[in-house]
């Protein structure tokens, strides 16, 4: 039964008042994450619009050209001059993606970290002690995964940036013309450049370490999820993977013992092969 608390109504009233309302832990971070995702979409759309506007202003001179320029101005392109070099547009898009992604990734990582910290602050007491511990470990693993995913995304974005740089050089060196064949040639060169840049990164010790760390963190996260799931299954008296593993291991051991017993008989039947 709840104990009488004379100050209860006053506190409840204080919580309703917006100027004094304590924000639940993680809410701000969650809101920030949502904002970041919105920004990410906006940046991407702006990049596409900028690219389109840049193309429009490079159309053959004439009345249509003026119209396109006017249209671009009307869209606000005049405040940010359109890139004249298509590779510059590509760089701008990658940079925009990098900035937005870094922000979003950081926000996600922060949310995970805040949740993890909040769980870490919960005392490991009472009947829910073990459950809290499992949740705490899960949150820690999730936060670690988010952080490493962000690191990997940054490396892969850098690969895209360097690929574009190399592509620009190769296109210039190869004298690719503005034609349908030219576009296909650019694609082929992009693949070639991409593989070259990626191979350099992929063979580095730093990349191997990062990939290994992310893989290991992912496994830790999965193991925590499994632990929670197993706990729930046990409560419902449903079979678990651990139980199945035990059975499989026992069957294997029994088969090995059986094979050892049968081996002498099999050996008698064997004849050595004649060597040439």
């Amino acid at each position, binding site marked *: 039964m709840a104990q009488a608390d004379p100050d209860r109504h006053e506190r409840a009233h204080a919580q309703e008042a917006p100027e004094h309302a304590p924000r639940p832990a993680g809410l701000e971070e969650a809101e920030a994450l949502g904002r970041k995702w919105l920004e990410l979409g906006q940046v991407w759309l702006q990049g596409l619009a900028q690219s389109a506007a840049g193309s429009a202003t490079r159309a053959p001179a004439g009345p249509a050209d003026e119209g396109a320029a006017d249209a671009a101005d009307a869209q606000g392109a005049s405040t940010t001059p359109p890139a004249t070099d298509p590779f510059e547009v590509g760089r701008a898009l990658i940079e925009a993606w990098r900035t937005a992604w870094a922000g979003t990734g950081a926000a996600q990582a922060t949310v995970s970290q805040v949740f993890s910290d909040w769980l870490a602050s919960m005392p490991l007491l009472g009947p829910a002690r073990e459950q809290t511990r499992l949740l705490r470990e899960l949150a820690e693993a999730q936060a670690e995964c988010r952080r490493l995913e962000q690191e990997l995304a940054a490396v892969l974005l850098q690969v895209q940036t360097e690929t574009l740089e190399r592509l620009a050089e190769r296109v210039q060196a190869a004298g690719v013309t503005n034609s349908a064949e030219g576009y296909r040639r650019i694609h082929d060169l992009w693949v070639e450049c991409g*593989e070259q840049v990626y191979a350099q990164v992929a063979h580095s010790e730093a990349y191997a370490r990062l990939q290994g*760390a992310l893989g290991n963190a992912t496994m830790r996260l999965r193991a925590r999820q499994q632990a929670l799931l197993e706990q729930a299954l046990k409560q419902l008296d449903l079979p678990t993977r651990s139980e199945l593993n035990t059975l499989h*291991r026992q069957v294997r051991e029994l088969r090995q013992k059986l094979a050892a017993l049968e081996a002498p008989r099999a050996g008698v039947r064997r004849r050595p092969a004649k060597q040439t």
Partner: protein
Amino acid sequence: MTSPFEFDPQVLAQEAERFAARLRAGMESLARVAEVQIGTAPKEAVYAEDKLVLYRYLPEPDVQPEARIATPLLICYALVNRPYMLDLQPDRSLIRGLLKRGVDVYLIDWGYPDGADRYLGFEDYVLRYLPNCVAAVERTSGSQGVNLLGVCQGGTLSVCYAALHPERVRNLLTMVTPVDFRTPDNLLTKWAEHVDVDALVATVGNVPGTMLNALFLSLMPFRLTVHKYLALLDQIEDAAAVENFLRMEKWIFDSPDQPGEMFRQFMTWLVKENRLMRGALEIAGRRIDPRRITMPVFNMYALQDHLVPPAASTPLRTLVGAVDYSEYAFAGGHIGIYVSGAAQREVPPRIAEWLRARDPRPARRRS
């Protein structure tokens, strides 16, 4: 830097339209193609144990008995992917090529391991399955001993088996087989260095084929995830080419899971610790000494192999005790050595000639 190349909206729009039309045609073509047929060379199951099935391919009726190679050839395929790569389609088939040249072909199909197989290890494959398959081939063929051809990881298993049972292997053949896992150009082993394989296997049990597929694709992501599908559109009107593509696509993504313990041991003992190369590999307390491989050895590798670089295969010559050691460097890749046009012309004849020269029964007619 700036580029002299500028996108022309009109040309770009035209190209986009052409591309869209090709894409539409491509989708229609793909929808018309029925499920592709693979592994069609006639065969019969002669032995089965757990998930594995041992097949014998029916001899080519056109090959005269005196032109046949007496000792049967047992092919030990890898646990990764499916063995029908060796008989992908009638005109791209290592197995048919061997049958035409009088080779009596047996093949181990490891099947699709499931949760019950997660504790299978080296011991099961090298000390149980392989010996049982060899015995089954001997029983079926009436031969004493077999010619053993190991493919990729199956080659590594075959090397282990031949070192333990040299008396049962008349000739050992290896194709794109890794023995030295620590060469500088081996990207897979570099990546494996920092992976906690124990934790991986403890968490996933059997290692999913889809996980390995993602790994293989990430070796060359631009080429394998984008470019090859665009290249398909170039030949989308060619029904035969589309079917060839789809057969390969099926093979690539028809990936059995890897028995967890076997994966753990293979990755730890061979890939990370390079025990075979260091002469430190033991299976169930039995040391694998490749110097006991004194039978003739034919080592085939591919010069453009990005999965098993030549440097990972060629050290076999330094490991084995064979005096009769031959090598063949195929000008192609890890898969091309089985399915390319050049492979059809070069690989089966070389294998058959090499075997015939070492067959106990004198061949009356050369293939």
